[in-house]
């Protein structure tokens, strides 16, 4: 029997063939319920994976080409040392642009920790200089050595120290999301296989009659495949709907909980969970098909 024949039969439907297998049975409710639950979990796993990927990309892109110089000089010497640092940066190949972070911007950065009325002039806050490098990048070791020699109070921080673990963690989270999705699919396949085998076993008298009147195994298998595929699709559709609803119901925590409120889909990503019911249907199709033919072969 051809797979295409099965798929065509599935799409076309066959009301008469569908009736030859009894509709009742616990496997019906079991398949729909488990497909729904699995789809619900799959939506979350997908959302986790997509969000983690987005976070990793953002952190990676936003921080990869930037670095900062901290200049902790006594107030009297600060202007001269800042000028020296800027000169050094101008002379360093691989730097696209530099920007001295103003007092107002530095106050805004410190505001979450010290409050809005921070007297920045009274505190020994280092001067920050943002460096944006070219795609080719600059020689950070060389720059560090030169700064150490000419402006010892200036420290180059290229963010690598804290960026790498964050990006790695986000990437790992994306991978875990994908792994969870694969496990959910595998579990769905196992569950559908068990339900199909149970259904085939309990319908042995029906199979015997169908064979007696000249039904081919492909015909019998198709009746089961069609039923389980449609059940899994229906359950998964409902589960996906519930999952999407649950994602939309996550309260917006604003910037304070950016990572939490970021869990979900953005723009075109919303099309991705729509593939979950289809994936469930494809999984059920293959699981039932394999189980049906294996069972039919084992029957006399």
């Amino acid at each position, binding site marked *: 029997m051809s797979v295409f024949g099965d798929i065509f039969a599935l799409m076309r439907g066959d009301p*008469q063939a569908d009736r*030859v297998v009894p509709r009742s049975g616990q496997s019906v409710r079991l398949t729909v319920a488990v497909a729904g639950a699995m789809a619900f979990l799959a939506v979350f796993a997908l959302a986790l994976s997509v969000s983690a990927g987005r976070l990793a990309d953002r952190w990676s892109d936003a921080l990869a080409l930037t670095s900062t110089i901290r200049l902790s000089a006594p107030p009297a010497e600060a202007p001269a040392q800042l000028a020296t640092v800027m000169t050094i940066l101008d002379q360093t190949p691989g730097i696209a642009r530099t920007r001295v972070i103003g007092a107002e911007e530095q106050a805004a950065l410190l505001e979450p920790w010290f409050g809005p009325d921070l007297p920045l002039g009274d505190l020994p806050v280092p001067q920050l200089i943002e460096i944006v490098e070219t795609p080719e990048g600059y020689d950070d070791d060389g720059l560090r050595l030169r700064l150490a020699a000419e402006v010892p109070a200036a420290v180059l921080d290229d963010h690598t120290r804290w960026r790498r673990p964050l990006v790695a963690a986000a990437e790992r989270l994306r991978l875990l999301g994908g792994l969870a999705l694969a496990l959910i699919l595998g579990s769905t396949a196992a569950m559908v296989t068990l339900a199909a085998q149970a259904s085939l076993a309990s319908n042995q008298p029906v199979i015997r009659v169908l064979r007696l009147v000249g039904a081919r195994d492909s015909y019998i298998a198709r009746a089961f495949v069609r039923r389980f595929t449609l059940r899994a699709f229906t359950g998964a559709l409902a589960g996906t709907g519930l999952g999407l609803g649950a994602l939309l119901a996550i309260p917006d925590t604003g910037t304070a909980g950016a990572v939490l409120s970021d869990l979900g889909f953005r723009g075109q990503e919303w099309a991705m969970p729509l593939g979950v019911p289809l994936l469930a249907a494809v999984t059920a199709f293959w699981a039932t098909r394999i189980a049906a033919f294996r069972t039919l072969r084992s029957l006399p």
Partner: protein
Amino acid sequence: MIEMHDAAYGYGSDLVLSDLTLRLAPGSFHFLTGPSGSGKTTFLKLCYAELLPVRGQVTIFGNSADALNRDAVARARQRIGVVHQDCQFLDHLPLDENIALPLTVSRRASATRTQDLADLLTWVGLMPRAHAMPPELSGGERQRAALARAIITDPDLILADEPTGNVDWEMSIRLLRLLVELNRMGKTILIATHDLGLIRAAKQQVGARVLRLNRGRIEAAAAEL
């Protein structure tokens, strides 16, 4: 149609049937008789490839049963109408759908299917019970329904296993008449029965050959039959 050459069937070294050599010619009418447990049902199962011989050869419509794959068996069964002893039906389908089942599974499209089914139901006297569910049917109704299902695809061969086993004499004669009529239409008939009265009644209507299973072997029945 069906040929057997030194065919045997059994489990291990214990043979239930052996030395089976015969030929069911097209349009012939056969009875297979013998005591209960003599292997009549097993013999019929060899004829429609539900069982395969452990020795010798069974040929179904010119093809060796051993060489038939599952699809070929299904195709062969579409040419064989089987009336089973226990009249197996799909209990979740009404009678008319059960009778039309061989057409459904073989996907035979027919513009006159509804009318053909109605004619058949009328012929076997089950038109008023067309929408009844199988568990609601009496023994005689089930036997007639099984016969109707066996012939709806216009098969070449009809195998009936104790078709009158669960019905009274009047119904037995009625079923026999239906089978004789089918034989006159050119169908090959093989009826397994231990009802000698039925065989005698049949011989008055049709030239039937009677085979007897004795200790697992086929032999011609006594002349008084």
